[in-house]
């Protein structure tokens, strides 16, 4: 076996120092270092620089991390619930429902308007029911928005009541 070159030794020196070489390879490196001053000096510097990294001690951990973390998880759950409410498909379904409700209301309203002989006020029970449903569907968005605002307030730690004061 030809003796290893300095170039080859340098390329495996870190793995050697980390104990990550096969025993036979490690032995070849060890023999080279015993005789080559340049490579052994290089190895010494690598080790010294590596030891310098020990100056970065881990910082002391403030007690109560787990409790603070679990408090944050409570906030996270509120957020997840909020996101669930605001999922695009859910919003889309609400809008479709509101729009089709409005359209149905208009058609029925127009029919009732014609049928009752051009009266301005909703007259028939059907017509009044439709008008109530349209109002409810429009309010559905408002109800939703209120829920969002309330959830936001809970997250920011203040209530709507406080806002009014």
């Amino acid at each position, binding site marked *: 076996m030809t003796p290893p070159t300095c170039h080859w030794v340098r390329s495996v020196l870190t*793995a050697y120092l980390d104990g990550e070489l096969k025993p036979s390879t490690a032995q070849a490196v060890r023999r080279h270092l015993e005789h080559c001053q340049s490579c052994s000096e290089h190895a010494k510097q690598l080790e010294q620089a590596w030891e310098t990294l020990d100056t*970065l001690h881990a910082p002391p951990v*403030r007690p109560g*991390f787990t409790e603070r*973390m*679990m408090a944050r*998880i409570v906030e996270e759950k509120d957020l997840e619930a909020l996101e669930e409410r605001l999922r695009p498909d859910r919003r889309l379904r609400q809008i479709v429902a509101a729009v089709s409700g409005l359209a149905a209301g208009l058609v029925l309203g127009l029919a009732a308007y014609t049928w009752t002989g051009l009266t301005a006020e909703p007259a028939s029970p059907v017509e009044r029911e439709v008008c109530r449903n349209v109002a409810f569907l429009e309010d559905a968005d408002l109800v939703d928005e209120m829920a969002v605002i309330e959830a936001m307030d809970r997250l920011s730690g203040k209530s709507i009541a406080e806002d009014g004061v």
Partner: protein
Amino acid sequence: MAKAIAAVVGALQHGGSLSAATDYDVSLMLAFQKGNELAFQELVERNHTRVIGLVYRFIGDSADAEDLAQEVFLRIYRARLTYKPTAKFSTWMFRITANVSLNALRSRASRRDDVSIDQMADVHEGPRAIPDPESRMPDEHMHQEELRTKVREAIHTLPEKQQIAVVLNKYEGMSYADIARTIGCSTMAVKSLLARARDNLKDRLLLYLRTGRGRQRIA
């Protein structure tokens, strides 16, 4: 709390996968996946010191270390439904820790890039300039804190993958194979990453090693 978790973990260890049986943290994560929040709490309790320590070594700032460690556990919490026990829990957790820390470093760097041209001129003429060996050499007065700053700077100037490999190898004592699993590359690639990283560190820190002052203080 411990009793409740021990019961769940015990049940999992009988019917669970091999990795769940050999890695207690994996068992906890699986218990959490089934809805046991106490298991998550115990995961936090068991691992937060290591995570905070690692974040600190990545970002070099103890003030931000706790916030970022919380971010790490938040990601673990959010991943509960998609988590699969394919590796050691620590491998997965350290990957998240490295991602969170390096993202924070990147956004810090981009904030630095936002400084005005005037400020930039100052920065380049100021302490960021390459130290002049003649003027900076009175290392007899080099304080431990100064040395720490140099070490931090030296680590931060490494390419990201080298940083991760260095931090995991140095401060977690991870083998090349475990580092490879954490960052998703081959063991050979880790070998070459660490070789280059340690050469870089030697070159950057040599100035402070020559006097031997820094080393005396470490020892």
